[in-house]
């Protein structure tokens, strides 16, 4: 296999990342995220009708019942319906609403699930979620800085922040619902993408020490090539299970699986381009990773 000169394309990649980030920022500032019930508060009810049902009818029934501002969408099949009431309705209103719909329907209506989230919970959750992400990034910065070197840590954190922002952008642009499980997925992506970045960084460090006659740029390229096989195989196996989860895992897990799929894709890309490019931009040198040289250490070079 010919080795790929990854770093030649780093400016193109930087422009690409910049573009994605720009889109993210624009989308987030204009339409924010489609916050799920966990964050906005309110009542959500999943109903199962015995035979297919017309959403327009349900909306009319709800209006007659005095439930204004209720959102009615189908959920998976034409027999499953999701109703969302805004936060202004109290916690007792959900059960009453189910009765209204049962009374109006000419068929059996089964309540599959009902969720009520009070306003105080949502705000707190958003705060906690943001805090968790910052905390994760901070601790990673410290651990990697300690185990490797601060430039590697910066590279890793820049790559992670890049991934998180782009997933947020993806959810903002596609208007997919951003709920608690998506937040968990993003945190899992931080873990996953970090895993990738560490593996690449580890190799760059090793090669910086080993290959004496090459500029850092060349060393990074060699390292990326060496780890490429592993990076692709791991991403592939992870994506295989995630695709299975997204397709067969059901609607409650769909957002979670999609967030992870996007995250793993972008994480794979970022561990190749963002972390390494940042590392070069920060001016990593052989001295940064130098260890007190032991006499007679094996210095055999690998010919790329």
């Amino acid at each position: 296999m010919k080795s790929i000169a990854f770093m030649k394309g780093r400016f193109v990649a930087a422009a690409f990342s910049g573009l994605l980030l720009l889109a993210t920022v624009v989308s987030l500032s204009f339409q924010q995220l489609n916050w799920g019930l966990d964050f906005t508060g309110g009542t959500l009810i999943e109903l199962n009708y015995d035979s297919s049902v017309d959403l327009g009818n349900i909306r009319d029934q709800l209006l007659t019942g005095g439930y204004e501002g209720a959102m009615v969408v189908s959920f998976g099949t034409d027999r499953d319906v999701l109703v969302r009431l805004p936060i202004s309705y109290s916690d007792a209103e959900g059960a009453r609403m189910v009765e209204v719909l049962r009374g109006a329907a000419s068929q059996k209506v089964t309540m599959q699930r009902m969720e009520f989230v009070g306003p105080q919970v949502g705000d707190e959750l958003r705060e906690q979620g943001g805090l968790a992400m910052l905390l994760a990034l901070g601790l990673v910065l410290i651990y990697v800085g300690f185990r490797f070197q601060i430039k590697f840590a910066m590279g890793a954190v820049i790559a992670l922040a890049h991934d998180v922002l782009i997933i947020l952008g993806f959810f903002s642009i596609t208007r997919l619902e951003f709920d608690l499980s998506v937040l968990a997925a993003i945190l899992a992506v931080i873990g996953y993408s970090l895993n990738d970045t560490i593996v690449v960084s580890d190799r760059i460090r090793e090669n910086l020490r080993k290959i004496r006659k090459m500029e850092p740029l060349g060393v990074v390229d060699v390292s990326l090539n060496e780890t490429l096989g592993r990076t692709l195989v791991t991403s592939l196996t992870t994506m295989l299970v995630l695709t299975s989860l997204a397709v067969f895992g059901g609607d409650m897990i769909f957002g979670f699986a999609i967030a992870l799929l996007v995250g793993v894709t972008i994480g794979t890309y970022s561990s190749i381009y963002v972390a390494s490019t940042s590392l070069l931009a920060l001016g990593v040198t052989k001295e940064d990773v130098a260890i007190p040289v032991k006499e007679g250490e094996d210095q055999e070079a690998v010919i790329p």
Partner: protein
Amino acid sequence: MLNRYPLWKNLFITLIVAMGFYYAAPNLYAPDPALQIGGSSGAQGINGPLMDRASQALSEAGIGYFGEEIQALGKTGLIRLESREQQLKAQAILQRALGDGYIVALNLAPTTPDWLVSGSARPMKLGLDLSGGVHFKLEVDVDAATDRKLEHYENGIKRRLREERIRGRLALEGTRIGMTFRSVEDREAARSAVKDLYPELLLDRVDEDVPQLFAEVTETTIAEVVEYAVAQNLTTLRNRVNELGVSEPLVQRQGKNRIVVELPGIQDTAEAKRILGKVANLEFRLVAEANTPISERQRFDYRGESRQGMTEWLERDIIITGERVSNAAASFDQNGQPNVQITLDGEGGMLMSRATRANVKRRMGVLFIERKYRTRYENDENGETVVIRDPYDEKKVLTAPVIQSALGAQFQITGLDSPAESSELALMLRAGALAAPISFVEERTVGPSLGAENIELGVKSLQLGLALVVLFMLVYYRVFGVIAVVALTANLVLLVAVMSLLSATLTLPGIAGIVLTVGMAVDANVLIFARIREELAAGTSSQLAIHSGFERAVTTILDANITTLIVAIILYAVGTGPIKGFAVTLSVGIITSMFTAIMGTRALVNISYGGRRVDRLSIGRVRMRAAAVSKEATA
């Protein structure tokens, strides 16, 4: 010799994996839908005839059942049902047949065989999103609790100042009480009086010459009030949840002032909320004397098992009710005897002193009042049976101590048998105090069919994902792929075993965590195999390639996994409910995968290839480098 594990190491790995299989095994046995019968007051035992009555009721209704047994020394009975669909119907039938004296609860009875039970192997618990049920999050109103405490202070200070004949005006201002006096001397007198009464208050004045004083409630005191309010609500809720007929309820504190209640199997949220939100109360009344006319006295049973069958005649007049109790705490007197210290609010103290002054040496009874329901069954106009629940108050005597002297706002009940009795009594006395109102801030109901569907979908996607990964590994890594797949299987088994041992709850995100672990667990193997391939490509001999391949990959694997573990731990610390479930699976998965991928794989590789001459490793395509090929040719 290269690549040989000592025997003990192989045995150790085999042992761990064998234990993994043992502790994971209970999860293979699906639980039976069942009904659990218990006495509603704890006094009624469950006996053979009762179980026969229950069985008969089920037979008459044509509901298939088996395996009736009496458990917990006759405290509960269990009947297993043949089909899950009939569980709710069977519950209603049994409840009707047995009456209000018994509680019939939905239950999932484990079917773990004896050879597993004897090693205390248990299946994982299913979260509400998988089993169906209700989840509530309640919030204790901290502000109300603080306000009540402030009022208590204000009343206390007012009373003390009156006693000390200091005239002044009191006003509540936020978290402090402002006092205005006529003179600086009055202020100083008040200062020492308040300091003596409530040393925990922070006293401050505006200026030397201004006759004003501020008593501020400190942060610590407020924190204590909140702590107390939450703890009390927790205990009250636990007691009430037991009435709901749920076999494995969860009542747990979350954060500063939240309480999570999870009731598996329950579908009727309105009923659950009514019982959780109900108020218990207390009444203090004098014990009737021999000459008290019958029209002015009432007879009550004692509460609790130890005083079963004892009764007490009390006067009809109520001295005070539970709302007047601002605190009750279990404590010890100077002789080390257990007692309960009771504090009443200002008005309560006044009423108490008026009632007891003339009645020293008589006894005073404390009544505990609980709202209960009687169930009736009636036919409506369509001929369908409707369940009607009529509320009534059940009043029982907690204790009836002798009044030793005229009582005021603070007094104590002595002569208790044990510290356990005093803390129980203090708890019951506080139940009427309602330390702080609670409100529902979150509520989730999952129907049982949705729960079953979630399990099915989760398992299906896990199977498919696993199959795809296995296929890929076999094609890509050949014999080494087989080894990786064996390691992956062992990892899954160990993951399930550890989760079961930790009695972790399996939730839908938890299943997602397992699925994700499958994808990521092969990563360690991929790293190792990639290294071995590289070594081979560089022309290293097979044995040496295996050796250094493992050696070099291990540090990378450790670094990568520890960082992921950091993230998982944060997820656990910050997340709630399902997210926590995901974090647990992820962390356990990372740890077990490191064991199976590094040690397990190595053992298998050593057994297949180690310690002998191997010409070729079956690890998929290795791209020989030009230099390496020539080197091998000369070798």
